[in-house]
């Protein structure tokens, strides 16, 4: 187990290095460059521009800039945001926290709905199975941002039961009910895709599990059908879902990007969109590295927890 962990962690290093090179080259080959924002500003004269470029080290050759940047990233000095004039680390911390709240809320909704739907989809009458199948297919096909817009239209504009966006009522102190009220819309939208995907996956896993010998054993010893499904079938069908959960870490950040934009949720995804508009390079580079770390950590965690949850799998 420990040697497996060490090997996996070592394998992550070259991937992260490659990601850092790609991100660095991508953002540095962008036309206009980091100074494009200032170049069009009439209040910034060319001398200032040159001074700024020199102080940011933009005159160094690319390899030198890359090594400097990588060194700074590794020592926790993620630079100063061009837009917010604050250390990038602090901004990312706040935004990541907001995204995690949203993602956590959506995961709670998703697992609470997806598991019963998946079980129902595998065990109910065929006609009903097909109906659930069609609905979940619709769930994976609707564009996230449009679903968000429709939720806003129905619940915020027409019915006036949900806020039109944001994380909390402006000016109010911390209030759990207020926070939950704000997170409900975006979390439900973000959860829709997961519910649809997971319940489809869970259904096929459950159908596969129900064909196994231990199910026949459970039935043979006189266990009721509900007990067979829940105690024996579902327990085994849920295992692969762990992997899916880990693999979706990165996708949730990407999906949250859209949802956060629609609902003005101040998270990582919205930060990315804002930084892009402002050409805020330090924030963009650090965000991409952070996302890559999250994806790789999610994959590793999924594999590890799978090894813990399923005694048939030994990690070594």
């Amino acid at each position, binding site marked *: 187990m420990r040697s497996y962990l060490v090997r996996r962690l070592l394998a992550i290093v*070259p*991937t*992260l290095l*490659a*990601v850092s090179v*790609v*991100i660095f080259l*991508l*953002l540095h080959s*962008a*036309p206009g460059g980091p100074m494009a924002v200032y170049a069009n500003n009439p209040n910034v004269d060319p001398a200032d521009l040159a001074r700024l470029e020199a102080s940011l080290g933009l005159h160094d050759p690319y390899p030198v800039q890359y090594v400097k940047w990588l060194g700074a990233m590794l020592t926790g000095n993620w630079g100063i945001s061009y837009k917010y004039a604050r250390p990038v680390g602090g901004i990312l911390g706040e935004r990541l926290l907001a995204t995690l709240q949203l993602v956590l809320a959506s995961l709670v909704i998703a697992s609470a709905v997806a598991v019963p739907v998946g079980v129902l989809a595998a065990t109910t009458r065929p006609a009903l*199975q*097909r109906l*659930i*199948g*069609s609905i979940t*297919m*619709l769930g*994976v*096909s*609707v*564009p*996230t*941002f*449009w679903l968000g*817009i*429709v939720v*806003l*239209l129905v619940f915020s*504009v027409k019915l006036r039961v949900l806020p039109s966006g944001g994380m909390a009522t402006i000016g109010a102190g911390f209030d759990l009910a207020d926070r939950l009220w704000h997170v409900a819309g975006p979390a439900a939208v973000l959860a829709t895709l997961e519910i649809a995907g997971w319940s489809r996956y869970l259904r*096929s896993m459950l*159908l596969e599990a129900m064909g196994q010998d231990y199910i026949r054993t459970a039935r043979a010893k006189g266990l009721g059908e509900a007990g067979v499904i829940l105690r024996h079938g579902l327990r085994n069908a849920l295992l692969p879902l762990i992997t899916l959960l880990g693999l979706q870490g*990165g*996708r949730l*950040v*990407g*999906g949250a*990007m*859209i949802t956060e*934009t*629609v609902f003005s949720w101040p998270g990582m*995804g919205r930060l*990315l*969109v804002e930084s*892009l508009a402002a050409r805020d390079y330090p924030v*963009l580079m650090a*965000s*991409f590295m952070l*996302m*890559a770390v999250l*994806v*790789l950590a999610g994959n590793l965690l999924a594999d590890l927890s799978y090894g813990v949850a399923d005694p048939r799998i030994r990690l070594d």
Partner: protein
Amino acid sequence: MAGAGVGMEGSRSAAAGAVLERGTGERRRGGRLWARLRHDPVAAASAVFLLLVTLAAVLAPALAPHDPSAIIDRPMAPAGGETRLGTDDLGRDLVSRLLYASRVSLAVGVGAAMLTVLIGTLIGSLAGFYGGRIDLALSGLINLMLSIPTLPLALVISAFIEIDLPLLILVIGGVSWTGVARIVRAEVLSLREREFVVGGRALGARDSRLVGRYILVNAVPPIIVAATLQVATAILAESALSYLGYGIQPPVASWGNMLQNAQRYLRTAPELAVYPGLLISVTVVSINFLGDALRDALDPARRGAPNW
């Protein structure tokens, strides 16, 4: 010399055999798809809808009642009179814009899916066929692509270039080929040691011929299924990028960028937000249903898997 000649003869007849077999195989699969469509009303309805959307896209210039960029009435005029669905926030005919937008969205979907298959097949078959260092390097590339979330990556690239339709296809196709590459790699790995491939090699077939005429031919069904589902993914990606303002640029209409301003007018003209999103959703769900039917019909490995 003579030996080489015989080898070429041999491989040609072997290839002819493969082509014959492939012909009947495809007919059989085609028949299976047809049978599936006849017994599956949802898949059949999806196929009909996609046919209609494609027709509407192709015939948009003939069908559109107005120039999609022309201002014909006051902004957000209600339906009726000159227009079937009213006008958008600038006073342009909504029906005409939806029609022309379908051309852009379908072009991105199909174009990006084709590019995905091209890149994915190339990289997957190189990695699977040669193995060793080449596989290590290409698998590393695939892992690299998988660790950068696709949508943000596409967003950054399209924000930094002057994006237009062909470039958008390149960007979306260029970041989403990993799925196909992994499928093809696995297929090639499992096929390359089979008798008929070893036989082809013994007959003197070059690598490119072995991959193209012996191996990939047998990997076509899963590739077709992946390509179909990729069309849906690409349409969704286009709409998301355009919604965020980094996809298709106005005044050209796409289903995604028609939604860009819709949120601002949610209180005054909610129908602006409804129609394009509805079209995207129904198109994508139809492609997904059809993809499922295709999978059942084409992919023998998955046959017998429970249907919905």
